């Protein structure tokens, strides 16, 4: 057989044809490449969570190669001198080895922990974005519910994760968790005993948490995240209102190449920030806490930030114990309410919110355009209320540290939290509602009268008025009435947002391009108020 010359340039084309012959992917691939995504900085928040999750998977797999999830007692003989000869669990010893005797293990451990904190933070901020812009409305209620669940599953992932090293701090957290389970009426002691395999701490909880942390919970997270992204893809992203944007279209960029390239770059940036934090900022220095011993604790024992609101609610709860005098008597301890009932209510309220709002507004339409928070004062105020509630609880989770650093009485901090929890949310509601109305009013004012130019004119009769630049070409109309409709989007409020300043000159030290002719010279007012419009500043007359 005659040997043909190998044509390198034709290979990709041939391979592509071969693939399409077998899988018929040309059309779906084109659809994918062409899919249009709207762009706004706030749409990146969820991606930070996604990218942190990828980092968590990568670093987490590394950690499993060295971590030993066992509570067998060993005597530490690693290279960290202060703990040598100390009896401890194998889990704690192997965590120390990860930090001191595995090359680069500490940076991986710290990256894993920072990525977890970032994951939760990004979820929360992303959720706020979705809430305040109304992105959860029909048809996206399912994705809102999945998002809320992701927070709680992430919460579990975090808790099981930081319990694994079995150090002094996490062991205390585990003991509190066991007390929380114990507090559940009727089944509490059975539940705790079943999970811990007997009385606290038992010998098996670390192995059980390990398999939950590395298999069950990540599996659930992967499943939920896949559905979450799949739905975003299927339902297409929401967009802000603006020129050409309607409820029935998506205005943005096609996915390839620019959008995808930016995503890839952004992933690297998130990864890089986590690496910097993992290297430069110490987190959870377990070797300072020592192994877990039931009788040792230190002040300022705080959990990771996303657990602090529950710690805070526990601290603020008054000592209300319910005794049920039947037989030997039964007890519902005060711990039950802030740690079991409260999260239950929060899950219920947050997942049901889209339906509650739609029912309240009798709104059954699909919404693909976002709303500015100011345009929906009631929802924004409810959100502010929730944020105020959360912030008071989170701060109360650190109230001993605040009391210590600011020389405040600890009891005063607790009482401030108790009162604040009742007072701050309604106050936040009221203030936010008024702020929204004020902002709305200002938007309408600018649309009606124009942008403040900062130019003061003195009128012949001695009065001073500020010249306003109207936004619409009012003069073209026969009646000169130029009031604009509000379009649900940003109203320019400064002259440079109208292009009244010349375009920026590009280049760092010297211009790299010849600057465009500056439209006006300094000192000369950029906008000449027309004589017949000079009274617009006072907003009284338009002729």
């Amino acid at each position: 057989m005659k040997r043909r010359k190998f044509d390198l340039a034709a290979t990709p084309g041939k391979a592509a044809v071969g693939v399409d012959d077998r899988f018929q992917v040309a059309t779906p691939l084109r659809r994918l490449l062409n899919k249009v995504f709207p762009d706004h900085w706030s749409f990146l928040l969820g991606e930070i969570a996604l990218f942190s999750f990828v980092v968590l998977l990568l670093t987490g797999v590394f950690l499993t190669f060295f971590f030993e999830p066992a509570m067998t007692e060993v005597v530490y003989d690693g290279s960290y001198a202060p703990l040598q000869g100390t009896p401890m669990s194998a889990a704690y010893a192997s965590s120390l080895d990860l930090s001191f005797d595995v090359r680069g293990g500490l940076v991986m451990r710290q990256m894993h922990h920072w990525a977890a904190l970032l994951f939760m933070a990004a979820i929360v901020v992303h959720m706020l974005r979705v809430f305040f812009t109304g992105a959860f409305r029909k048809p996206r209620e399912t994705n809102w519910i999945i998002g809320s669940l992701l927070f709680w599953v992430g919460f579990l992932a975090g808790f099981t994760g930081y319990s694994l090293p079995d150090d002094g701090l996490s062991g205390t957290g585990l003991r509190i968790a066991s007390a929380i389970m114990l507090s559940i009426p009727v089944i509490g002691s059975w539940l705790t005993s079943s999970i811990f395999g007997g009385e606290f701490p038992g010998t098996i909880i670390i192995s059980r948490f390990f398999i939950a942390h590395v298999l069950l919970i990540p599996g659930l997270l992967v499943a939920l995240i896949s559905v979450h992204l799949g739905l975003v893809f299927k339902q297409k992203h929401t967009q802000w209102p603006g020129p050409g944007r309607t409820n029935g279209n998506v205005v943005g960029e096609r996915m390839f190449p620019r959008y995808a390239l930016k995503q890839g770059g952004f992933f690297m940036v998130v990864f890089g920030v986590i690496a910097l934090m993992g290297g430069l900022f110490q987190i959870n220095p377990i070797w300072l806490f020592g192994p877990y011993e039931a009788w040792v604790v230190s002040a300022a024992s705080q959990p990771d930030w996303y657990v602090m609101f529950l710690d805070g609610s526990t601290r603020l709860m008054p000592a209300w114990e319910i005794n049920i005098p039947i037989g030997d008597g039964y007890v519902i301890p005060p711990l039950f309410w802030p740690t079991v009932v409260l999260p239950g209510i929060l899950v219920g309220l947050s997942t049901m919110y889209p339906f509650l709002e739609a029912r309240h507004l009798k709104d059954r339409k699909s919404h693909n355009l976002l709303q500015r928070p100011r345009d929906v004062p009631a929802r924004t105020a409810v959100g502010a209320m929730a944020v105020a509630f959360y912030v008071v609880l989170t701060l109360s989770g650190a109230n001993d540290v605040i009391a210590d650093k600011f020389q405040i009485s600890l009891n005063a901090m607790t009482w401030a939290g108790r009162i604040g929890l009742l007072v701050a949310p309604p106050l936040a509601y009221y203030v936010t509602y008024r702020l929204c109305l004020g902002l709305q009013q200002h938007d309408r004012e600018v649309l009606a009268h124009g942008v403040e130019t900062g130019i003061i004119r003195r009128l012949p009769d001695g009065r001073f008025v500020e010249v306003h630049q109207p936004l619409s070409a009012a003069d073209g109309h026969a009646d000169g009435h130029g009031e604009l409709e509000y379009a649900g989007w940003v109203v320019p409020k400064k002259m440079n947002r109208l292009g009244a300043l010349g375009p920026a000159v590009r280049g760092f030290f010297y211009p790299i391009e010849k600057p465009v002719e500056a439209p006006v010279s300094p000192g000369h007012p950029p906008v000449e108020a027309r004589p017949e419009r000079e009274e617009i500043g006072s907003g009284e007359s338009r002729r």
Partner: protein
Amino acid sequence: MSTEHQAQQAREPLDINAPGVTRFDIVREGARRDDIEIVHYEPQVQPGTKAERRLTRVVAGMFLITGLAATAFLAIYIWWPWQYEPGRGGDKFYTPLLGLTLGVALLAVGFGILTWGKKLLPKEVSIQDRHEGAVDEDSRTVTGQTMLYMADELGVKRRPLLGISLLAGLAPVGAVVAAPLVGGLISQPHKNNQMFTTGFAAAEGGERVRLVREDGRPVRPADISSGGQLTVFPGIEHGVSNQHADSPTLLIHLRDSDAQESRRANERIGHGDYMWGNYAAYSKICTHAGCPASLFEQQTNRLLCPCHQSQFLITDNARPVFGPASRRLPQLPIEVDSEGFFVAKSDYTETVGPDFWERP
């Protein structure tokens, strides 16, 4: 929107094999087939301009920084002294340097790609139709009828026995799946009365348990100065370990006046003989969430739990005076044996540790 849609359908499809059709024309045609209109497509830099060369240099520079930083990471990883040494050795910089080089490498490649995408590629605005409003009632009906037809074919309605027996058959299968999980995990919480006893329970022979220190040595009254306190454990095997996580006890040597007050409080609740001299022993395990309530304030005789700030007044039977705890710390009745060491007269007479439903 509807007119736009009609306009698109009325559009002449482009003949992609026609001569003179550019690649961009084909791209635009492909987009149109997906109901996407590229309405604005504008290069940000003109090919061959100074701006383009400059941006290219910037992006290339960033990629090279990545290479440098990654190489530095490898060099540090291999040659930097990394093993832990006490003191302020170079090993303390190992992790920060790894993080720094890795972070810089990733950030540089990230910003390089971002600059490439944001500055060098053409800006575009495309509009894609969502096709959401156009609900196809017909296909809903067809799918619905298909499913109903399938249900009819199965004939569950006509043959209800099938459905009932299937359910009856599958329900136990579900239970079979759950049984090993529940059965394997479930554990009787009151085995050996474990929730109501601690390590201080007297042995079967009636021998009383000594109070020992962390290192296992027994405690004499003279070991604690007035106003001082000491954490003690049951003097049994593994008494100090986490196997007896409910047993840690705080032995407090009260000052005279406080001791008298404390004794009077004891007598009020029928615990008149629980103290020995000026010494009182209370469980260290907080009755709220089980943390060790270990911060003792000598001046006020208050014991504070650092987890949730419950405060217990030792001179009033360790009654909770502030915070979320609702139950006093149980008191351990103590005395001194013939050899002069502290022993527990009996186990705690109240339940130790966090509360639960069936605590009497």
